């Protein structure tokens, strides 16, 4: 019998019941909640007079709607009354049901996908769900983690289980070493460029190969975070020493005897050597350049020395129409070098790239330099209160401020512009987030996805430029 993939192991380990019709009940170890996708789920529980199955599996925090300035005012600082109600509703629901929540004034508050790992609430071998598609981030720890809808949030609260269909296995292998200046973000954008935004649909992707295992946990999280942009709900990396060292000593990670027990179990969290994948995709690390998206889908991406494509050269009519539409929306002419795209704003943040290492990489580029006068705004939004504190301890805040970037309070911010931070119509933004969809960062806004270092270099130049000239 062939060996098991990491996904097979995680699946088998959490299987409560296999039903005859192919669906299965899967046990959920950790459930993360935020204010946008949970209110209707709590309401559903109340209407059906149901209680959460297991309180200590849940952790909540507000992140999407919180303001990133003047945080000391707490909830009163949320000017938009509709946003405020949503954050208040989360507080009320967590208090009423007894769920642990890091509220807006708690230093541990932050983007759910940043605080889970930071707190040790994300542990190898777990199943982790959240009403947010970027829950795939946690797969970096050898977990089975994915986004769910609000009905499923309610289902997990009520039953601690999910009804699932087993997915297929895909291995994305990045061989060899990465070039200097190339980060996890560039790797995942290159993967999406290769397999397309639906390339992973129906699959659980395991990222492997030397280039992946040489990355820090931050880099791996960035890659798993964006597996949903390749269509895969689940992205994973096998557990190794890097994983275990990261988890050790976190507030909620196991201690004492339990730590040793846990580590010995975690050592098995990798695909067996003879495991069979339904699909294997390979990339050479050395071929990957810093990446820039030019269009309105993450697959519309080129290397930093690339040009915006020409629809006349595309033979598939639906794709050609897609390129024409994207160019129109982005206000770009075919064949423009991406380095000629002039920028209005720069956003460094989001659950993809707002961890301490991301901020260090960006700070190293802007240190001793000044943001281009042509920019309207360049901002840095740390992923959590603890990332913020750590960065300030290292003096990164001063580096950013001296270079002319704004230093903000933690939250999702301009990643999806549900709070006050957004793009104006027609503005081009170099963004370290994960989605360049139409209107994502503000009505008519034009998003280009890049790594933190590339965003920092773009802030200095006022247009895209090869970050490797800044290192």
């Amino acid at each position, binding site marked *: 019998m062939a060996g098991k993939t990491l996904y097979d192991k995680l699946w088998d380990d959490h299987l*409560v*019941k296999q039903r005859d*019709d*192919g*669906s299965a*009940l899967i*046990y959920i*170890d950790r459930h993360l909640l935020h204010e*946008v*996708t949970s209110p*209707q789920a709590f*309401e559903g529980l109340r209407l*059906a007079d149901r209680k959460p199955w297991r309180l*200590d599996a849940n952790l909540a925090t507000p992140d999407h*709607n919180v303001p990133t300035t003047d945080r000391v005012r707490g909830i009163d600082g949320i000017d938009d009354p*509709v946003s405020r*109600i*949503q954050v208040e*509703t989360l507080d009320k629901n967590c208090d009423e049901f007894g769920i*642990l929540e890091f509220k807006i004034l708690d230093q541990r508050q932050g983007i759910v996908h940043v605080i889970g790992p930071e707190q*040790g609430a994300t*542990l190898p*071998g777990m199943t982790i769900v959240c009403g*947010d*598609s970027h829950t795939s981030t946690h797969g970096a720890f050898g977990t089975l983690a994915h*986004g*769910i*809808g*609000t*009905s*499923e949030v*309610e*289902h997990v609260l*009520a*039953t*601690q*289980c999910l009804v699932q269909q087993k997915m297929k296995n895909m291995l994305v292998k990045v061989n060899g070493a990465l070039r200097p200046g190339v980060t996890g973000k560039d790797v995942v954008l290159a993967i999406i460029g290769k397999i397309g*935004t*639906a390339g992973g*649909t129906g699959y659980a992707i395991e990222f492997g190969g030397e280039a992946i295992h040489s990355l820090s946990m931050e880099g791996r999280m960035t890659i798993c975070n964006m597996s*949903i942009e390749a*269509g895969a*709900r689940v992205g994973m990396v096998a557990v190794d020493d890097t994983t275990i060292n990261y988890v050790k000593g976190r507030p909620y*990670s*196991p*201690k004492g005897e*339990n*730590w040793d*027990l846990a580590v010995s179990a975690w050592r098995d969290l990798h695909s067996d050597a003879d495991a069979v994948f339904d699909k294997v995709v390979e990339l050479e690390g050395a071929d990957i350049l810093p990446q820039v998206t030019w269009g309105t*889908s993450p697959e519309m991406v080129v290397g930093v020395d690339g040009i915006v494509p020409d629809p006349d050269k595309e033979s598939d009519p*639906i794709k050609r*129409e*897609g390129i024409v539409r994207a160019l129109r929306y982005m206000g770009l002419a075919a064949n423009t070098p991406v380095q000629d795209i002039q920028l209005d704003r720069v956003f460094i943040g989001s659950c993809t790239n707002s961890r301490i290492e991301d901020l260090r990489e960006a700070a190293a580029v802007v240190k001793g330099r000044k943001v281009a006068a042509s920019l309207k705004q360049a901002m840095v939004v740390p992923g959590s209160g603890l990332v913020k504190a750590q960065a300030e301890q290292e003096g990164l805040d001063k580096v950013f401020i001296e270079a002319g970037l704004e230093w903000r309070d933690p939250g999702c911010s301009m990643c999806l512009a*549900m709070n006050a931070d957004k793009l104006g119509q027609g503005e081009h933004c170099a963004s370290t987030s994960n*989605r360049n*969809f*139409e*209107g994502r960062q503000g*009505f*008519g806004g034009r998003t280009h996805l890049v790594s933190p270092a590339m965003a920092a270099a773009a802030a200095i130049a006022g247009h895209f430029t090869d970050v490797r000239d800044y290192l």
Partner: protein
Amino acid sequence: MRKFNQHSGIAAPIDRNNVDTDMIIPKQFLKSIKRTGFGPNLFDELRYLDEGKPDQDSSQRPINPDFVLNQSRYAGASVMLARRNFGCGSSREHAPWALDDYGFRVVIAPSFADIFYNNCFKNGLLPIVLDENIVDRLFDECASNEGYQLSIDLPAQTVTTPSGETFSFDVDAFRKHCLINGLDDIGVTLEDSALIKSYEAERRKQSPWLFDSFTHS
């Protein structure tokens, strides 16, 4: 949940690949804490010429006459024809809520994003995957025939065109059962409470660290 058995309705074509859930319902409308009322803001940025805000009377807004759903021939449409990878991006269940609130009951596409596909079933909305060349033909027929209607039979797993041509589709047995009977998933799962409890007890023994995590600090 509303039951789904048979449905016939006017088809409306959304002719682009990779329609994401941000496009189906933009983020400013996610601030609601309700499940209903999203219909007027379905495809808001394509449908209106101004920027939509929550709590606004959309009937007073300037509409984009070029957008499919604003054309009188598609008034009352309840079957959506869509392209590849429909519903990609954010997991927001507000997307199926908005489609449902607008009046759609069925979405037909060559492929769907996983989370969206799953969310549809939880809300009595039926996503149907048909071969790309069949979907192409439905698009063509829909464009050239005003009032083009499709009939969907879930128990028989078929889509039938006005000329009587019938296509079958696949649907997972459990989801079909829940949809036809309007079953609440949670109720079905809780019938297995005892199994869940015994799994949990075993897990607590094997992996105790998973159960003390929020208590020791």
